[in-house]
């Protein structure tokens, strides 16, 4: 798994490449938490275009971040998840908490609190 971080306004965009499972989700969690603090942002966008696999460990990691951000009014969204990951996020109910978007612009409008067009 490879990660890269960028900041726009009050949002950190985390580009994830590779597979998210129990083994890799630990690193994804702590790297996300430290980037969130270091960059002093409010919201998170996970860019999943290059994520080839995700199981329930990814769901747990995302819900964990959702809970942390919810307590301080931050928003979190996922962009460009593949078909299976989208399916998992939908039937687990996760996409109701963390909306899925096709484009980074729509994800950004949502997290920054402008109009939103969830998938």
């Amino acid at each position, binding site marked *: 798994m490879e990660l890269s971080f960028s900041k726009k306004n009050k949002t950190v965009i985390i580009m994830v490449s590779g597979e998210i*499972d129990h083994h890799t989700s630990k690193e994804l969690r702590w790297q996300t938490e430290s980037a969130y603090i270091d960059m002093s942002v409010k919201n998170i966008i996970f860019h999943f275009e290059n994520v080839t696999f995700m199981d329930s460990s990814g769901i747990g990691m995302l819900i964990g971040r959702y809970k942390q951000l919810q307590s301080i009014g931050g928003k979190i969204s996922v962009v460009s998840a593949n*078909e299976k990951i989208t399916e998992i996020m939908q039937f*687990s109910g996760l996409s109701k908490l963390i909306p899925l978007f096709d484009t980074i612009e729509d994800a950004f409008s949502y997290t920054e609190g402008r109009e939103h067009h969830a998938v």
Partner: protein
Amino acid sequence: MQYENEARVLFTSKSENERFARVFIAGFLTPLDLTISEMTEIKTAVSEAVTNAIIHGYEEKRGNVELFCAYRENKVYIEIADSGSGIENITLAREPLYTSKPEMERSGMGFTIMETFMDQIHIQSEEGKGTRIFMEKTFTKE
């Protein structure tokens, strides 16, 4: 039952091996020409059961995880077993969102994912002895 092809592997309950289990199953099933969707569903179900063996069965202590896979006609058969703690209440464990480890950021969706992505799942478990998960999936054949 006489399978057309079968394979069995035993590996240490280390989280690195979750990926190994997915690569192993994908490699074994390659001759079947599954759709990407079918292959991903099987890999995800295997990943869930193997992760459960490591996290819950052995509570991240060292043990062996067994993965058996086979196929015959248009059906794939998979078994994942550990000799760990066993499951106290199988009915409860299968419920969506039930997890015994919420503090570890588990969501309780593992069995639900296995049930959604596979046609059949059967759980055999005895407290203190271990757990064996049986799964089956019919695939489309042109």
